[in-house]
């Protein structure tokens, strides 16, 4: 009569614990992944981004303008990093993503303010990621309504209150309707590529080792570079199929605009796909079995998705998290894809994001090739 017995149950429990303890990497990941998630979600992620880089284009240097700028600085949301002399310079700063906002004060600001003509303050925002700009724009609106209250004394008191002494106009560039998909869909391209490319290649070489076919492969005259490149090429093609699918979906399903150059996007995708594959190959030379390879890929994927600016605004993160994010290839690829698709960036605009990608690729490749041994030593 088959009956549930506790000594058999206990035998299984003990065996599982022993096996768990033997597989150090898996055990480490079981502890490491929750810690990593805790750190990332608890400390790094902030859906109310502050200290956003802002450029000023001041046509007027009067005391009211100084009051406004001082209030901006104190608001925490805006960090003035540049003063743009011309409209073209301001536009380029936005285009390259060096600033999130440009604040334009017209030349006759003070005069028109005093006359009660409600001069316009133009707040230009890079709205590719609506989540990043929303709270700051709201703060600017409040500011514009009451910042001059203390200065408006005597006969000017009448200017206080509604509709306010100035007219704050917000110009949301690149995504005027603040459509979230505009931001998410291009970002998804990088996320999907990271996920599939890293996992698939991490498994590719580990599988050879686990099944014993590696020994056979090593006994043939095949060279390490031949194995590595040979394993990568099929997945580059898979990666391009994914890119094409996402671009088609973006265009026809989500109506995301494609402002920039498609060939440029495909060109940069090559760099990103190769970098992701190199990470996968490197993991597969480190992992003992396929489970470990998947865990390592996950360990890489988690910060990639959380710290790259895909899910949460990059500029909302503390400095250490931004620093880690800047190492990850996805961060730079996201900026490039969003830049090309939404802002119409050209090669010169995306060049600053290419170098970190190239550097990452070189380092990952070097580790992978160094770790791949031609002998079983």
């Amino acid at each position, binding site marked *: 009569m088959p009956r549930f017995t506790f000594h058999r149950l206990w035998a299984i429990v003990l065996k599982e614990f022993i096996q768990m303890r033997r597989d150090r990497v898996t055990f480490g990941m079981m502890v490491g992944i929750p810690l990593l998630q805790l750190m990332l979600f608890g400390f790094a992620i902030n859906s109310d981004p502050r200290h956003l880089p802002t450029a000023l284009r001041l046509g007027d240097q009067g005391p009211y303008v100084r009051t406004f700028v001082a209030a901006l600085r104190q608001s925490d949301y805006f960090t003035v990093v540049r003063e743009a002399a011309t409209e073209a310079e301001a536009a380029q700063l936005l285009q390259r993503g060096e600033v999130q906002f440009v604040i334009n004060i017209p030349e006759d600001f003070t005069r028109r303010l005093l006359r009660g003509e409600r001069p316009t303050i133009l707040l230009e925002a890079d709205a590719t990621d609506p989540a990043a700009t929303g709270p700051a724009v709201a703060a600017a609106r409040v500011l514009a309504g009451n910042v001059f209250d203390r200065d408006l004394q005597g006969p000017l008191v009448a200017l206080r209150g509604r509709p306010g002494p100035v007219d704050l106009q917000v110009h949301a560039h690149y995504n005027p309707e603040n459509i979230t998909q505009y931001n998410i869909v291009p970002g998804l391209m990088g996320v999907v590529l990271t996920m599939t490319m890293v996992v698939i290649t991490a498994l590719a070489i580990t599988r050879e080792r686990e*099944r014993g*076919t590696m020994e*056979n492969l*090593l*006994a*043939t*005259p095949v060279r390490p570079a031949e194995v590595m490149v040979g394993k990568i090429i099929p997945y580059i093609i898979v990666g391009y199929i994914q890119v094409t699918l996402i671009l088609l979906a973006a265009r026809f399903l989500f109506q995301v605009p494609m402002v920039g150059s498609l060939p440029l996007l495909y060109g940069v995708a090559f760099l990103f796909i190769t970098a992701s594959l190199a990470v996968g190959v490197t993991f597969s030379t480190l992992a003992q079995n396929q489970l470990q390879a998947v865990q390592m890929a996950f360990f890489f994927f988690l910060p990639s998705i959380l710290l790259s600016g895909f899910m949460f605004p990059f500029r909302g993160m503390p400095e250490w998290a931004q620093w880690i994010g800047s190492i990850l290839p996805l961060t730079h690829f996201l900026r490039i894809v969003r830049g090309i698709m939404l802002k119409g960036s050209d090669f010169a605009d995306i060049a600053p994001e290419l170098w970190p990608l190239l550097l990452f690729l070189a380092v990952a490749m070097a580790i992978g090739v160094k770790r791949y041994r031609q002998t*079983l030593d």
Partner: protein
Amino acid sequence: MTGELAIDVTGVTKRFGAKTVVNQVDLQVRRGEIYGFLGPNGSGKTTFIRMLCGLLIPDAGRGTCLGFDVLTQQAEIKRQVGYMTQRFSYYEDLSIRENLDFIARIYAVPDRRAAVDRSLEQLGLANRSHQLAGQLSGGWKQRLALAASLIHTPQLLLLDEPTAGVDPKARREFWDEIHRLAATGLTVLITTHYMDEAERCHRLAYLAYGNLLARGTVAEVVASARLTTWIVRGPELAALADSLRGRPGVEQVVAFGNTLHVSGRDAALLAAAVGAVRDSRHTWTLGQAGLEDVFIGLMDAARDNFA
């Protein structure tokens, strides 16, 4: 070409950490010879073979394999050696033909399609060529592995326990094939645990704990062991075996079905021990020590010396 050495290595040593797995092994194998490599599990046979085909670099020693330096010319050696690993190491998710085609491409076999067809034909795999390798039984997997390791017509075939888990008929066919190949000039180095297979080799070597303990033809190896063996028939052999064990001069007491083999290197001492337990119920005959008796004797001696 006869008499020329396919493998000629001296002092080959391999250490993993503090453990010496292969210790100062010298081995000479002539071209066209079937050379058996025997020894207990973990004796260093696989490690030695991996050093011959460039999968591992020896820590010490020197020598040549097919005339190429084993320390520096691994790439040249790999091109002319066929290696059949202990564990099936072809792709289970590729068909038989796809596996052979892959290996043939890697070795840049000329006229690849014809070579693959010929190989399928020779090994009787032609009508199974589209079956996935993973679905094959042990015997068929072994045939596939042999076909794949021969597809680039190597000069030297290294076989690491090729017949483990293969039924007797398939094993016999396999050995017939090996002899046919050797007759064409192919050199074969084969590891095995089976004594009948050892006896089908031209010459053999015995490795234990990384040390080469004996080598030569079967007759030479048996003779050099100078082992005396008594064969006992009769009732209650288990009790007799217990009373024999531990007596001076008795080194091995092994049951072979209805007989007991009692062996020792010192014939006089063994005779004295046998005399002490001998009675009328059993028949005692002085027999010829078998290869297995010799190897177990060597292993016991090696454990005393090296382990």
